[in-house]
């Protein structure tokens, strides 16, 4: 039954993005940047884990979750290792996603040819 929450929250987050696009004509890069910053902020004030508890993938799959795991990694590493953790923790927690995105982009860009825009 929690799939309903996943669907509702996930859809809602994406719809907020679409509202921003319609209202302000901002580019997708700015959408992604602002949603990542929102994720970092939500994790920093501790709200993200609460939402994640019932929304699961609904909040983790949107890019907000990427920002949250950056912040979570930094916070966790600071507690474990001190100051150096603030620098290492964020990227460590998100390294899998970034590496996967870069690797697959590299491979598929070599395999496929760009479609000419009509």
């Amino acid at each position, binding site marked *: 039954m929690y799939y309903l929450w996943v669907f509702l929250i996930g859809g809602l987050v994406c719809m907020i993005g*679409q509202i921003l696009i319609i209202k302000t004509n901002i580019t997708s890069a700015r959408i992604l940047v602002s949603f990542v*910053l929102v994720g970092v902020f939500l994790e920093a004030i501790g709200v993200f884990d609460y939402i994640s508890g019932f929304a699961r993938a609904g909040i983790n799959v949107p890019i907000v979750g990427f920002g949250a795991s950056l912040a979570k990694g*930094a916070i966790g590493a600071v507690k474990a290792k001190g100051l150096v953790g603030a620098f290492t923790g964020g990227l460590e927690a998100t390294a899998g996603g970034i590496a996967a995105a870069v690797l*697959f982009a590299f491979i598929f860009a070599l395999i496929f040819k*760009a479609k000419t825009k009509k």
Partner: protein
Amino acid sequence: MDAQKRNEAYNNYVKAKIPKTRPWPTLFYSFLVGGVICCLGQGINDLILLWFPTMAEQTAWGYTLIILIFLASFLTGIGVYDKIGKFAGGGSIVPITGFSNSITSPALEFEHEGIIYGLCVKMFTIAGPVIVSGVVASVIVGIIYLFI
């Protein structure tokens, strides 16, 4: 014509040229597609935990995101993701699949300018700002947590 007047005239010109999209259908589709992508992620995550019950939840999420990124990258490569993006708008940009699409898409487009200066450089035109802002913010948060 002074600069301000010229800018105003230009903005009006741009406004007249932007294709008019009706907002309500795109809102609905972005909700629908975004929700479906998130459910897909939840489904993958549940399947992983079903097949590997001993796996830590954090690790399972890592695999889930990597699979979603792979799917989006592949769909971008064969040209399907952009078609979804045309009617889904925010529904295809905001999920992590949109992040993957924003890396693969320019990589594909600029491959003809060479592997290094085309593919590798242009890959980060959208993802670069995302990673930079995220890393800067997370380091700041980490340092704040050092003191509280």
